[in-house]
């Protein structure tokens, strides 16, 4: 008999969904009640998730529970739906529910007095329900449904302030970009259904090793990977994520930093048995991830908007996770996902606290000296930044180190050097942000005030998590994380002191460099800027990717439209015109037979009869002959 809490796991996504339904149906005019329902439901889901985690993690290696029910049964097609509770989903349940709960509490302060307060909480609940449904799905079909649902929630919440054109456009951009990825993802899923006749993860894992035609799995795996590329914003589908910062900051923290964008990484981990059996796909994943990590980190170096710096940092870290997946370090990738969820949501909420205090100002150069007025925000933000930079013993250190170790141990030296360089850039841009915004000479920060308790308490909790969660996969706790979250095909190298020390030193070097340039001003950054004007412009304009897409888009759309216009005018219209003209012409010609002379008509009749007689005679003759 299963544990009571296990059989009631379906409540976890259902509770927030009920909250969403109740808020949008009955309480959309009562903001306070709406927020209460939403927070209560997610808190209850969190409790359930901890209960499930307790059961799942109570056995060495983790217990696995699966419940399946037939949803659709027509001849030749059976569609199942079900729940899968294993260490991977239990971990994600914990991460999603805890961060969602904290973000919703924080939003009480951040979204206070917003006219859309109730609908904000409705969307938050819908998002939580969708994300949790995605996490516990036991097959690709069900996952895809929730995958789309989180996408639509993301769309709603990016465009939450739809009165602003930029928010509206960003929402549409996110939706369309994701559609490109999801199209490939859906194709990949359909291929799996055709090839194996099942979408169940366990069923596929069973059928896959014996599959004879391995070559066809390469395109299938790469198609499947386009979904994560869209959702986790991998190059070249990364363009939507920085613009998604138009949404409220708690949304950026929850959806566009901690959970939804990590869904792509989660999917790769979930389908690791597919990807790991296709080395070509693994190479693609590793290099797309590595490239995105470097690409986004370089852009983050020169951005001036506090949220955009964090957004590019998120892109870069997601690239890191993907790279880890691609080199086979699935444990490290999921570990980094977990730690990143905590410290990146901490950073975003900290940024939100700053923006809240600065009355909407997001330019770091217009802040400065915030540490005097906002001590809690400042110190929690610094903890988050230290964790992100990978300073021991904070969580980011353990997970980032694990990835670098994986790259080094599996012989991907190029990716190792790239990862180390990105770690340096990460430390640099994070502390550039901190030195400029929190300790800068600009006195604008003097006007700021510390945020209320509902905002600072989540910051403190997340800061504690950012410090502590890393230990679960550290030598101090015997790498217990890796005993639960792993895959036989993945790699789990033994830790190496050399890598640990070097990655810590790299992070420190990045911080030192930021300190030299932006705090001590030993090197004048304005001089640097004018010296490397071309590179600076290139980075500031995000490698002109948006412009290139726009150009390509307009060539495609306008070119296509022109071709279609030509076809419409000359072929479709031409055909219609031809029909009309033919009818008219033939009528014009034939009308003269209608001359009103009764004798002409008699003549036609006689000729007709004559022809019939001739035909009948010929037929009779041919029968006789």
């Amino acid at each position: 008999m299963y544990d009571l809490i296990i059989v009631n796991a379906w409540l976890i996504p259902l509770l927030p969904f009920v909250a969403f339904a109740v808020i949008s149906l009955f309480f959309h005019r009562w903001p306070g009640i709406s927020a209460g329902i939403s927070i209560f439901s997610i808190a209850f889901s969190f409790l359930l998730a901890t209960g499930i985690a307790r059961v799942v993690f109570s056995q060495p290696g983790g217990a696995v529970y699966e419940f399946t029910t037939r949803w659709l049964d027509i001849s030749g097609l059976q569609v199942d739906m079900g729940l899968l509770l294993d260490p991977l989903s239990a971990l994600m349940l914990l991460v999603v529910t805890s961060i969602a709960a904290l973000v919703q509490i924080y939003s009480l302060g951040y979204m206070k007095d917003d006219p859309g307060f109730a609908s904000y909480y409705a969307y938050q609940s819908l998002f939580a329900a969708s994300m949790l449904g995605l996490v516990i799905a036991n097959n690709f079909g069900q996952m895809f449904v929730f995958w789309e649902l989180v996408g639509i929630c993301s769309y709603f919440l990016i465009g939450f302030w739809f009165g602003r054109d930029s928010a509206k456009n960003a929402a549409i951009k996110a939706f369309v970009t994701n559609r490109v990825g999801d199209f490939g993802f859906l194709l990949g899923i359909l291929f799996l259904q055709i090839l194996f006749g099942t979408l169940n993860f366990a069923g596929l894992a069973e059928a896959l090793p014996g599959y004879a035609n391995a070559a066809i799995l390469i395109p299938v795996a790469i198609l499947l990977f386009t979904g994560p590329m869209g959702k986790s914003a991998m190059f070249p589908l990364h363009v939507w994520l920085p613009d998604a910062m138009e949404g409220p900051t708690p949304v950026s923290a929850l959806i566009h930093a901690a959970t939804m964008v990590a869904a792509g990484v989660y999917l790769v981990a979930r389908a690791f048995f597919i990807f790991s059996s296709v080395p070509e796909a693994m190479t693609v994943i590793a290099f797309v991830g590595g490239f995105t990590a470097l690409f986004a980190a370089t852009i983050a170096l020169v951005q001036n908007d506090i949220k955009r710096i964090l957004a590019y940092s998120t892109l870069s870290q997601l690239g890191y996770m993907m790279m880890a997946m691609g080199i086979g370090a699935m444990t490290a990738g999921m570990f980094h996902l977990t730690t990143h969820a905590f410290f990146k949501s901490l950073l975003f909420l900290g940024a939100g606290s700053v923006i809240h205090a600065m009355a909407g100002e997001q330019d770091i150069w217009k802040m400065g000296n915030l540490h005097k007025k906002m001590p809690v925000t400042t110190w929690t933000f610094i903890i988050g930044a230290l964790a992100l930079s990978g300073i021991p013993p904070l969580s980011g250190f353990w997970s980032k180190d694990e990835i670098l170790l994986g790259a080094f141990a599996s012989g991907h030296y190029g990716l190792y050097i790239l990862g180390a360089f990105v770690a340096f850039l990460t430390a640099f841009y994070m502390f550039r942000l901190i030195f400029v915004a929190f300790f800068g000479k600009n006195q604008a920060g003097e006007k700021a005030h510390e945020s209320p308790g509902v905002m600072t308490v989540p910051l403190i909790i997340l800061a504690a998590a950012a410090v502590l969660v890393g230990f679960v996969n550290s030598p101090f706790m015997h790498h217990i994380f890796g005993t639960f979250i792993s895959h036989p095909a993945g790699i789990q190298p033994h830790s190496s002191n050399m890598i640990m020390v070097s990655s810590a030193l790299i992070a420190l070097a990045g911080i030192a460099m930021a300190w030299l340039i932006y705090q001590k001003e030993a090197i004048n950054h304005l001089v640097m800027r004018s010296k490397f004007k071309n590179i600076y412009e290139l980075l500031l304009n995000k490698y002109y990717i948006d412009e290139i897409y726009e150009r390509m888009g307009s060539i495609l759309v306008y070119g296509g439209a022109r071709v279609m216009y030509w076809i419409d005018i000359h072929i479709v219209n031409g055909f219609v015109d031809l029909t009309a003209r033919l009818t008219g012409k033939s009528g014009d010609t034939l009308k003269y037979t209608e001359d009103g002379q009764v004798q002409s008509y008699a003549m036609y009749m006689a000729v007709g009869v004559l022809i019939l007689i001739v035909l009948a005679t010929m037929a009779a003759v041919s029968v006789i002959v």
Partner: protein
Amino acid sequence: MIGLPHYILLGSVLFSIGLFGVLSRRNAVAVLMSVELMLNAVNINFVAANKFIASDAAVGQLLAIFVIVVAACEIAVGLALIIAVYRQRRSVDLSDFNLLKW
């Protein structure tokens, strides 16, 4: 020996002459007369066929008489129409009656 082909040939010739008259005469009265010719050609066919082919002696004869009756009615109605048209148009030339053209 005069047999069925001769009668049929005579009927065909008469019918063709009648048809030619119907198609070519401009005078409406002449057209009506040509129609009579065609009807009589048919009568010859009926009677001849009755004589040479049919076992029952009466059917062809009866049909011929029936056609004569119908022809008499037809000529009466036709002439009445011609007179009515003549009162309107002062003409019996069919080529003048072309109001129903395009």
